[in-house]
């Protein structure tokens, strides 16, 4: 909502200046977002005198003028107007000025070989008249040269953010009323109107009784023999200051009343109305051309203002061109109506129309303002255009939906935290337009018709707090007492894992929850992707089913900037369905490029599967899952290299999935056109991490150390290549769980000297006795057992 101090002063007597008013407005919840000079561009246009107008040497119809623009400055301007002549006072626009009519910015330009510094303006170009012939001729004196042509453009305007609960402040008077209630001035009374209205409105109006009728009241006045014209300066300037275009006196008057009183009006060319006005529900398929020059085709049950020939306009939203007023209009019908907010909003949403009237009706217009609107609109039009008005015709009646609210003064302090006297309560509420009645300790309050937002006592409490000032609310220091743990297990896990992964060298990214369906599908096992009905762009059209799709897009962008060795991760939701809760929390991490690149100290080496496996495993260890409980298997997902990926699961290979790791599938790398052949990743399913019932300190066994020497023995077997290292380790460990502390593989070899289909595998077995020192005999026995069991189970042969 835009207004100025002078406009406010039409309604408010106050001594405050603009800045003080703005400050007060913000304090009472009418936030002044900015203060601007209304149009600094208009300041560019100045009064000048043509000293000499000669024929342009290269063009018959053009003139070359020497123009005095004040303070002794002469400029040369090329001008095409016939009336440009010696000694004429005119309006000069310098280079840089923007011509109001066509928004063209002037530049120094050569016209037929001669430079023109700016231009001399016609009334048409300044948006002041339709007269395109010739430049403006001013009746001025020498001393006026150099003055601004547009007066009062210096008045600043305030742009006020009006919250949706305050339709009354979408009119200047509402703002003035709020200001007055704070005690900074007095709200002026609206002057009474006395106009002779002798004849009956010749246009019959009816509101059809239908289900869902969007119109409650339709008031109108017929004015005959008007002479429509341009608005006077003061009105044009106000209209321009609102960011609107002056159209004609009649249209400008309706707009003025809308912004002055929050009372939309509409003027019809009465001669274009086919006999009568019928307000009715539209039928699907009906159409009309609206004043925004677009054709709208209506659905059923929209509030249509129609005549016998069809639709004239949409009630409370927009009028139609068929009955629009023009400068030649002779007789008008001025409408002031009440349209219900829900129907206005619904229709405008479906048709996607946004107008100032719609904005007001959907928030709620004062239902009692129908007559006032007609009066003020009529007066303005009569003043400017003359004419004879009919009697008002007001069709329809609204039920007064307001309820009396019981306000207990103690309730105020219970909510606001400070007290207020009954006298203050009365004064403030009355100045806001409420009617009050005392009833014991309670105050019975009837809110004014223009405040649809005041429905219950808290609404009144807000009014009182707001007008008293939020700075009156005391500051009560918070208590430092904890009733509940700040974080639960899942939340702690989230924060811990996040930092655990980062501490392994991964940089955390936060990416959209939506992603490109083309990439998402590469990393998804969902049958149906979760589409957004209204994505922000076509490449962010689905909810992600994996963290990988946005991560790999991020990896790609970084590689393209030549950051080719990098580690990124994200922790956050992935989506399994489109219902609330169908999501799970995951970690996705990717690394690409080389572990070491062109380095004096070590060989170049790509990141590999064992890097990524380690990262995943160590993270799981750090969040409390012991390696002994984790099974590594070669189960995988379609987006991994089938031979270079695996699963970490809890307990057995078929236990809950903790994490997948591996190389990203080469065909995905190819498809996404990544400039690398080496991307690895791991995904941790945080929701599958079990919550331990015991604290770590409780589940730990007693601390014991063996005083006996540990013994290490190495073995090497040639074994069928189908056996995984994990299987061999598990096999050996099982032989004597007490004695065998660990099995460490230190060599795996395939190739020369080994039969194809077989591999050589060498491992150390660490024996840790608990109750005695192992004798050679003991060690031999265990060794033999290991050899025989490995041989029997796998058909391996001991390598000599």
């Amino acid at each position: 909502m835009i207004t100025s101090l002078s406009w406010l002063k039409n309604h408010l007597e106050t001594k405050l200046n603009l800045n003080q008013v703005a400050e007060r407005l913000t304090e009472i919840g009418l936030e002044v977002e900015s203060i601007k000079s209304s149009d600094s561009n208009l300041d560019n246009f100045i009064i000048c005198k043509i000293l000499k107008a000669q024929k342009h040497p290269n063009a018959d119809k053009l003139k070359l003028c020497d123009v005095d623009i004040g303070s002794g400055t002469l400029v040369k301007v090329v001008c095409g107007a016939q009336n440009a002549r010696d000694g004429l006072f005119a309006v000069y626009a310098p280079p840089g000025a923007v011509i109001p009519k066509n928004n063209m910015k002037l530049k120094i330009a050569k016209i037929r070989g001669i430079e023109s510094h700016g231009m001399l303006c016609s009334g048409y170009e300044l948006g002041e008249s339709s007269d395109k012939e010739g430049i403006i001729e001013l009746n001025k004196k020498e001393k006026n040269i150099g003055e601004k042509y547009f007066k009062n453009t210096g008045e600043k305007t305030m742009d006020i953010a009006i919250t949706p609960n305050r339709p009354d402040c979408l009119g200047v008077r509402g703002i003035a009323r709020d200001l007055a209630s704070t005690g900074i001035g007095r709200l002026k009374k609206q002057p009474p109107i006395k106009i002779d209205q002798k004849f009956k409105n010749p246009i019959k109006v009816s509101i059809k009784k239908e289900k869902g009728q969007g119109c409650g009241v339709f008031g109108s006045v017929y004015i005959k023999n008007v002479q429509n014209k341009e608005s006077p300066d003061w009105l044009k300037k106000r209209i321009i200051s609102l960011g609107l275009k002056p159209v004609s006196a009649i249209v400008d008057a309706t707009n003025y009343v809308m912004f002055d009183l929050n009372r939309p009006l509409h003027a019809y060319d009465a001669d274009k109305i086919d006999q009568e006005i019928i307000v009715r529900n539209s039928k699907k398929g009906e159409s009309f051309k609206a004043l925004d020059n677009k054709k709208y085709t209506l659905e059923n049950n929209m509030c249509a203002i129609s005549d016998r020939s069809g639709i004239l306009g949409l009630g409370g939203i927009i009028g139609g061109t068929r009955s629009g007023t023009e400068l030649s209009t002779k007789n008008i019908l001025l409408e002031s109506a009440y349209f219900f907010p829900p129907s206005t909003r619904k229709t405008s949403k479906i048709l996607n129309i946004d107008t100032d009237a719609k904005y007001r009706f959907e928030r709620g217009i004062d239902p009692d303002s129908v007559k006032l609107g007609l009066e003020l609109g009529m007066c303005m039009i009569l003043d400017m255009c003359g004419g004879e008005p009919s009697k008002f015709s007001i069709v329809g009646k609204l039920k007064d939906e307001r309820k009396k609210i019981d306000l207990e003064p103690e309730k105020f302090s219970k909510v606001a935290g400070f007290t207020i006297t009954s006298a203050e309560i009365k004064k403030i509420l009355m100045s806001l337009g409420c009617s009050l009645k005392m009833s014991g300790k309670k105050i019975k309050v009837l809110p004014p018709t223009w405040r649809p937002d005041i429905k219950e006592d808290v609404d009144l409490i807000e009014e009182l707090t707001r007008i008293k000032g939020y700075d009156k609310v005391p500051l009560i220091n918070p208590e430092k007492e904890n009733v509940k743990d700040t974080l639960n297990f899942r939340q702690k896990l989230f924060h811990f894992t996040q930092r655990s992964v980062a501490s392994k060298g991964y940089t955390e990214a936060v990416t959209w929850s939506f992603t490109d369906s083309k990439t998402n599908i590469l990393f998804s096992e969902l049958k149906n992707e979760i589409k957004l009905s209204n994505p922000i762009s076509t490449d962010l059209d689905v909810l992600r089913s994996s963290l990988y799709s946005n991560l790999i897009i991020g990896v790609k962008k970084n590689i393209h900037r030549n950051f080719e060795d990098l580690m990124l991760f994200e922790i956050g939701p992935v989506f399994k369905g489109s219902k609330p809760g169908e999501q799970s929390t995951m970690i996705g991490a990717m690394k690409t490029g080389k572990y070491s690149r062109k380095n004096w100290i070590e060989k170049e080496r790509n990141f590999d599967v064992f890097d990524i496996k380690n990262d995943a495993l160590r993270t799981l260890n750090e969040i409390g899952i012991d390696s002994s409980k984790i099974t590594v298997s070669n189960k995988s997902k379609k987006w991994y290299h089938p031979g270079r990926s695996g699963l970490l699961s809890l307990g057995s290979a078929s236990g809950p999935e903790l994490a997948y790791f591996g190389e990203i599938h080469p065909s995905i790398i190819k498809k996404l056109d990544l400039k690398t052949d080496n991307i690895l990743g791991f995904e941790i399913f945080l929701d599958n991490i079990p919550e331990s019932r015991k604290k770590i300190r409780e589940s730990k066994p007693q601390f014991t150390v063996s005083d006996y020497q540990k013994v290490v023995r190495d073995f090497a077997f040639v074994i069928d290549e189908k056996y995984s290292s994990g299987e061999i380790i598990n096999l050996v460990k099982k032989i004597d769980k007490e004695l065998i502390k660990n099995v460490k593989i230190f060599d795996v070899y395939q190739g020369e000297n080994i039969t194809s289909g077989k591999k050589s595998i060498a491992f150390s077995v660490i024996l840790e006795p608990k109750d005695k020192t192992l004798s050679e005999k003991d060690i031999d026995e265990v060794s033999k057992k290991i050899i025989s069991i490995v041989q029997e189970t796998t058909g391996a042969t001991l390598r000599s």
Partner: protein
Amino acid sequence: MENFNKIESEILNKIKDIKDRSSYESIKTEIFGKKGVITELFKKIGSLDQDQRKDYASNLNSLKTKVTEILDKKLETFDQSEINKKLKNEKIDVTLPGRNYFSGKIHPVSQVIDEVTSIFSEIGFSVEEGPDVENEYYNFSALNTPDNHPARDMHDTFYLDHSKDLLLRTHTSPVQIRTMLKSKPPFKIIAPGRTYRHDSDQTHSPMFHQLEGLHIDKNINMGHLKGCLYYFVKKFFEVEKVKIRFRPSHFPFTEPSAEVDIGYKIEDGKIKIGEGDKWLEILGCGMVHPNVLKNVKVNPKQYQGYAFGVGIDRLAMLKYGINDLRAFFESDIRWLEFYGFDPLDVPTNYRGLSR
């Protein structure tokens, strides 16, 4: 009786001849070997008279100690000179770079969530969460924002179905509803999380982060709200004094409602929070609307309280001087490393929120 002085000077003379490790060994054998000078002298002890034996043994032992010490010292000088010789050949250029390593970073949004959680933890709030996908009821209706209410225009919503029932939450406020429905008052919670609006320009991104706060109890008024937010802002920006303004505003789910502005100034091109005469809006808040309490079966005659919502990304931008919101989500490794935090830098109350 032996002349120990003489023997000693003979031994010391021998020791003087030691030149290297091998002559050391042979001379040590001459003295302490099976037939060494001192070994021989010890052998004699048994054959001595009782009265001589004591003096003899004492003299011999002190001779042995002295010689051993001298020999040990000799050996040490050999060790030392050998080490010194080795060190001469072991010089390397320590200014060469070491082995490669990658240091990870925590995203500013995550860091700020941890900071904020730490602050509210101190004053008794616990953390709640809610789903990113919501239905219309939790996101709007239950929050006193009925269908066809213009307040919905302030939330450009992403929908997942054409009936517009399933949507991406436009704020963290539905967590209020979910929290209150699943339990009984009092409530004292914060809820950080992702939020979504169909909006994208320099200062808006289609996804951003909010922190919801809710405190419902029997005697909670606007003064508590004010105290809580003052405490938060002061702690978060780590300033002694802070200029805050509560300005009336409107949210359908609170009444009275307020927006909170924080004073700032620009100094040397950098924003300075807490002083100055410019105002910056940082959060919205208010007393929970009785209709909201009714919707979650909490009796508004018995209980009341406040709620607030603050933009986490905006807090991060203000505190850490980040200009472009959209850069948060672009995964540019240069940006992430520049603005990111060390994983060990966990915000806590006792070590301070930030370094």
